[in-house]
């Protein structure tokens, strides 16, 4: 029977010839990840089940939501997770990047099943794997057993064709899609991105697409692995699965990306998407470049080209957080960080940064932050009376110079 890539990966991991949407399976997990915010509860669950992780090389702990610890409460949670890492001899322990970026740089291969106690674990599916977010107790269970149950999801196909206009990026494409599909439009579904646009897109841009599958309610984002994926993996190898031509999709979207303009998602929900022209001229207080959505070298490069030799407006603070140490070093070597700091940016250590409001960069009442992140929920970045608007790195960079929201195409 014809199958989707998601069905094939889950069949393989659960040792079955084939599975179909709606089946319940128990799959072998390639990697289980938790971060500083979700690991403590996962460890509590784990300890009630057993005292030894299923594989010390397949459990990954990342401190990225509040590192270095900003409060005693945060430090205490870190202490608890660090003790667990030491006690279990866990080899994958990091404090130098956003968990999803570290997973794609160091671990995930095509065909893997990867679970993370973070909703944006759908990001890693851009490498042709089945990757999804779970809660802490689920991750505790996987740490103990190496297995996880799943209901095989139905799939939605997003066939993206054409080329974007100058100044329009993967972030604009996915914001546009989220606006069309809605916050619950892909609830429980696999979001499979395909088409010429995706084939031509860099791995970095593909990660941006899959990152926001969860903002439509999706279970996983997935893109078939190709030569570009293999090049990105360096020496890592995997098993490449492809959707059959007549595989069943519950929905198919045909999208020509050439019609997409720079987009913004207005508060307080991610599917409140408009073209940037709808809010052009709106003053901003903070501009943020980073996160698992847009903190990669490609994003920093786009922003640097716009900001180089310019100055951030006096009414704006620009914060930049490379998504990993490797990206930080690459941006340093290429002179991007120097150019951004010269323009007035504060470059922070590679973490989730202000995106989750548990660290530096929080917002005061009435302030507006234009950010490259993936969520604009009220209260996420500080005061519940602050506004978060989502956009591409180019829109954020250009707007930081202007001190208000602008169309980046006028700054290129």
């Amino acid at each position: 029977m014809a199958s989707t890539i998601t069905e094939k990966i889950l069949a393989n991991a659960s040792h079955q010839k084939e599975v179909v949407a709606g089946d319940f399976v128990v799959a072998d997990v390639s990697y289980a990840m938790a971060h500083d915010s979700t690991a403590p509860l996962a460890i509590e669950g784990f300890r009630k089940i057993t005292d030894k992780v299923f594989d010390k090389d397949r459990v990954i702990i990342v401190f990225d939501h509040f590192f270095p610890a900003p409060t005693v409460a945060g430090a205490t949670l870190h202490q608890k997770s660090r003790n667990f890492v030491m006690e279990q001899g866990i080899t994958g322990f990091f404090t130098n990047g956003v968990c999803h970026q570290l997973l794609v740089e160091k671990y995930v291969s095509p065909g893997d099943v990867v679970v993370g106690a973070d909703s944006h674990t759908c990001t890693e599916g851009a490498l042709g794997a089945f990757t999804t977010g779970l809660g802490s107790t689920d991750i505790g269970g996987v740490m103990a057993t190496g297995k996880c149950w799943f209901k095989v999801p139905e799939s939605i196909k997003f066939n993206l064709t054409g080329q974007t206009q100058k100044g329009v990026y993967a972030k604009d494409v996915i914001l546009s899609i989220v606006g069309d599909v809605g916050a619950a439009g892909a609830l429980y579904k696999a979001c499979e991105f395909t088409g010429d646009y995706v084939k031509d897109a860099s791995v970095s841009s593909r990660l941006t697409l899959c990152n926001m599958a969860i903002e439509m309610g999706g279970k996983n984002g997935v893109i078939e692995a190709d030569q570009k994926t293999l090049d990105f993996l360096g020496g890592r190898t995997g098993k490449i699965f492809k959707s059959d031509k007549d595989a069943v999709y519950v929905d198919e979207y045909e999208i020509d990306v050439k019609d997409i303009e720079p987009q913004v998602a207005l508060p307080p929900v991610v599917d409140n998407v408009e073209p940037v022209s709808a809010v052009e001229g709106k003053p901003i207080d903070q501009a943020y470049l980073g996160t698992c959505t847009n903190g990669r070298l490609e994003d920093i490069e786009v922003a640097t080209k716009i900001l180089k030799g310019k100055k951030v407006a006096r009414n704006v603070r620009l914060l930049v957080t490379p998504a990993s140490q490797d990206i930080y070093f690459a941006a340093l070597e290429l002179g991007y960080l120097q150019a951004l700091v010269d323009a007035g940016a504060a470059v922070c250590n590679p973490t989730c940064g202000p995106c989750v409001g548990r660290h530096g960069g929080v917002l005061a009442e009435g302030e507006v932050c234009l950010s490259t992140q993936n969520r604009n929920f009220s209260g996420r970045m500080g005061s519940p009376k602050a506004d978060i608007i989502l956009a591409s790195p180019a829109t954020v960079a250009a707007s930081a110079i202007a001190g208000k929201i602008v169309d980046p195409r006028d700054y290129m």
Partner: protein
Amino acid sequence: MRVWKFGDDINTDVITPGRYTVTTDKKRLGEIAFIEYRPEFGKNVKEGDVIVAGNNFGCGSSREHSPVAIKAAGISAVIAKSFARIFFRNAINIGLTLFVSEDADKIDDGDEVELNIKTGEVRDITKGITIQAKPLPEFMQKIVNKGGLVEFLRSGGYDDI
């Protein structure tokens, strides 16, 4: 049981804002449920009360703090038209009762209801109507019947399936 009614797309930052979740203390989490979105909730919620909501309840982050906070606040069940999937799994894993019903919007804020946890029957005393929620798939019922994922895995787990 009093009903606390919420709309569509109630997200995890609304339930438990990120900067309040730097703890695993259940009592503290119970106190901060909806602290900014609906401050009167924490002050007036009583043991056994019920949340009724629209579509996609619990969307957003994977943080388990959200269902933990709702359960610790004393809520006995959440009835919604649909749930975000990570929230749904988390609730099953920690033993917070959830019911899916298309008819959730027939119930209003402040209504008095009676709930049959076993059958998913919700009787709205204020309105004199009854709605019937969908039963959980058999696979998930096995986990719920054991009292959550931890107990399920401690007592045979996947080997018994």
